[in-house]
């Protein structure tokens, strides 16, 4: 029975790839596990293995072919034991065979990889969750802190975070790593950080760049400035005691004697299809804790400028990144010393009719919603909080006093959320200015489901934001 070998999806985001090389020829026998081809994606070159025994009957896509769509037949395999199905066996329609990415990829670098090592263009070395669109450059409003005429460079959030860490580590006076002995390990054996955002740092500073939470806090007590990277904030639940009890409270408990200058960073919030224990937003959990500073940037520029500020900060900082934003590009100012203020929101879009307040990936919904609202004659102002503790309520209140309407947008759960706090403060401090009750758009009040349709329903959407904005403007929502 001949069966099609299909172009496999080698990552959750792959839609097409280049068939770089065939390792088999027509007529050749293959066994399960044999490498049959090499396929290049935008991220990496992966070997493809046969998953059934048989003979390659024909090759349908010659090597070197670009833009081969996922699930397109690339070869025909004649299965080894091609006999009629045994009697009584369940009748099952023959299924096309999708080949498997091989367990071990070739050592050569992908063709598309950027020249310097570990620049975040390849797949992370360890577990990677599906990410969103990778290439779209988002043109947000310029940073108020950037002087006019500054050259802007497009870079991904991942690259911005890596640059921020590398730059800060180079600042000799501030860096604990720089005073430590240099890396004596072979670079190929050094850990590159979970998401390659800390790749360069780990290359240069070996084991000193990545810490365990409690060990990091102790080192910070003793005057070092550790950066603790969590592969995701989901796993920080195992370390939250040290973030809350050991790091946040020590300055107070010691009567001001002992500082804890430490940064806890990593991706927070929902990725895609990774279910309840790997998809959750801890923003409001940490934003509640006195003694912490909590940062949740959206753009690459904010990620860079605020991570540099976090490393220089004398209080413990919880730095909440977002996995889906890692691959997204934004213009970043080319400045030698680009440090943004902690605790200052940014007007991402100026408008007069309604204030949309958000942070992190919530901005993506707000920005798209504002475009749709503009088409319907509603001019939305978008505030990117950037820092969740301390909250820049002054910027929010100034905007609400102008627009008289507010909708908050976040992916986290609704109860005691960041939006809840904003709405409460706006109600208390700008009640007379409000023309409509404040509204919150949040994730659903359930653990994140795995099923594709339910996951979509559990997250905010542009439609929901548009609908809420129209509602506070007393504009009719089409059914």
């Amino acid at each position, binding site marked *: 029975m001949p069966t099609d070998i299909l172009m496999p999806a080698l990552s959750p985001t792959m839609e097409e790839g280049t068939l770089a090389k065939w390792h088999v020829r027509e007529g050749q026998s293959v066994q399960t596990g044999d490498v049959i081809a090499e396929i290049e994606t935008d991220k990496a070159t992966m070997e493809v293995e046969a998953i059934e025994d048989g003979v390659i009957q024909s090759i349908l896509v010659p090597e070197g072919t670009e833009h081969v769509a996922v699930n397109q037949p690339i070869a025909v395999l004649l299965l080894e034991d091609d006999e009629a199905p*045994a009697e009584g066996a369940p009748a099952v329609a023959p299924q096309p065979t999708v080949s498997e990415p091989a367990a071990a990829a070739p050592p050569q670098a992908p063709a598309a990889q950027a020249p310097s090592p570990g620049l975040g263009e390849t797949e992370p070395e360890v577990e990677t969750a599906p990410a969103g669109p990778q290439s779209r450059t988002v043109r947000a409003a310029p940073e108020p802190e950037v002087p006019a005429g500054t050259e802007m460079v497009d870079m991904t959030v991942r690259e911005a975070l890596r640059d921020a860490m590398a730059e800060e580590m180079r600042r000799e006076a501030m860096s604990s790593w720089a005073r430590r002995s240099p890396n004596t390990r072979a670079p190929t054996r050094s850990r590159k950080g979970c998401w390659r955002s800390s790749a360069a740092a780990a290359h240069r500073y070996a084991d000193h760049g990545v810490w365990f939470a409690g060990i990091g806090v102790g080192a910070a007590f003793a005057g070092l400035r550790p950066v603790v990277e969590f592969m995701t904030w989901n796993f920080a639940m195992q370390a939250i005691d040290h973030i809350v009890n050991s790091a946040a409270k020590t300055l107070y408990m010691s009567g001001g004697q002992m500082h804890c200058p430490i940064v806890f960073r990593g991706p927070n919030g929902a990725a895609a299809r990774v279910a309840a224990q790997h998809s959750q937003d801890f923003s409001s959990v940490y934003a509640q804790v006195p003694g912490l500073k909590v940062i949740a940037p959206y753009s690459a520029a904010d990620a860079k400028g605020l991570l540099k500020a976090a490393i220089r900060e004398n209080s413990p900082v919880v730095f909440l990144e977002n996995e889906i934003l890692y691959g997204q590009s934004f213009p970043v100012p080319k400045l030698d010393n680009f440090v943004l203020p902690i605790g200052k929101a940014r007007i991402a879009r100026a408008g007069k009719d309604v204030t949309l307040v958000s942070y992190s990936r919530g901005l993506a919904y707000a920005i798209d919603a504002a475009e749709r609202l503009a088409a319907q004659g509603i001019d939305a102002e978008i505030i990117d909080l950037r820092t969740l503790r301390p909250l820049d309520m002054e910027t929010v209140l100034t905007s609400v006093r102008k627009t008289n309407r507010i909708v908050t947008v976040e992916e986290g759960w609704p109860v005691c959320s960041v939006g809840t706090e904003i709405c409460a403060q706006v109600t208390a401090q700008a009640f007379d200015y409000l023309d409509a009750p404040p509204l919150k758009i949040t994730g659903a009040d359930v653990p994140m489901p795995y099923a594709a349709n339910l996951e979509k329903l559990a997250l905010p959407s542009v439609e929901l934001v548009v609908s809420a904005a129209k509602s506070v403007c007393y504009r009719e929502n089409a059914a």
Partner: protein
Amino acid sequence: MDQKPSEPREMPAPPPEPTLNPDDYLAAYRNMLLIRRFEEKAGQLYGMGFIGGFCHLYIGQEAVVTGMMMAKREGDQVITSYRDHGHMLATGMDPKGVMAELTGRQSGYSKGKGGSMHMFSVEKGFYGGHGIVGTPAPLGSGIAFANKYRGNDNVCLTFFGEGAANQGQVYESFNMASLWKLPVLYIIENNHYAMGTAVERATAHAEELYHRGLAFGIPGRQVDGMDVAAVKAAGEEALAHVRSGEGPMILEVLTYRYRGHSMSDPAKYRTREEVQDMRQHHDPIELVHKRLSALGRDEEELKAVDKEIRAVVNEAAQFAQDEPEPEPGELWTDVVAAKD
């Protein structure tokens, strides 16, 4: 100071040369093949976009759970972390229900809401399916506590990886389980790589993980996890020790995964030759195949087993593609428990 830990009390005698009778070998062959073919199909469905998110395949490690399930008794419980499809199948969960959960469908074991990492079967005594490594150690100890509290003689088989074996909660569990002599068997599945980190790079004294319980008075043993007969023999011995009321035991099972940690793992932390060597010279299913042949089993009979298993797996895959997604209303169900 003596650097070597002293031998623990009650260390059982080493097991005799492990072997199985022909029927057990055939049963092991069938069960391991089911896991292998199921996981291959899951990888295939992932490539076709039917499965999303994380998908951690068990290929290469089949002898571990298969041998342990042959050693356990009816009523014993099983808990593990997220490389869990093999454990589900080995406890007798329906391949159709497991595959339908992988595709996020209503007929899946968790109604499509759990996915690859989170499936459970109260009926089969399978307690999950946990996404955070290390958590099975205290959870399994708690299930064992309930066994002791109720006065039954069931044991909780608690699986975790060698990476998780460095977690604090594992040692807190060892302490209480030993103190209270809980009927829990800790099984460290040492596949040598914690995601992309080789065991010796992140683990102190990595060659003797089975000694990690010595300070708590918990005996341990290291087992060849590529040989299902060795796993079964060690499992039986360990379970007898635990069931006798002597307290917990640790089995360190040396195994190897052929595939990446999850689906999108370009595997730059090990060589292709290393993987090929394990496949060609240490494959757990091939070993059983050879022993069955040596015992005079007909090759045609073994081929028929493979064919039968493929049909079961194909049927599960078809089911998992045909079943509907959960109803939208399922988003809001099962959040809080109903009153009695």
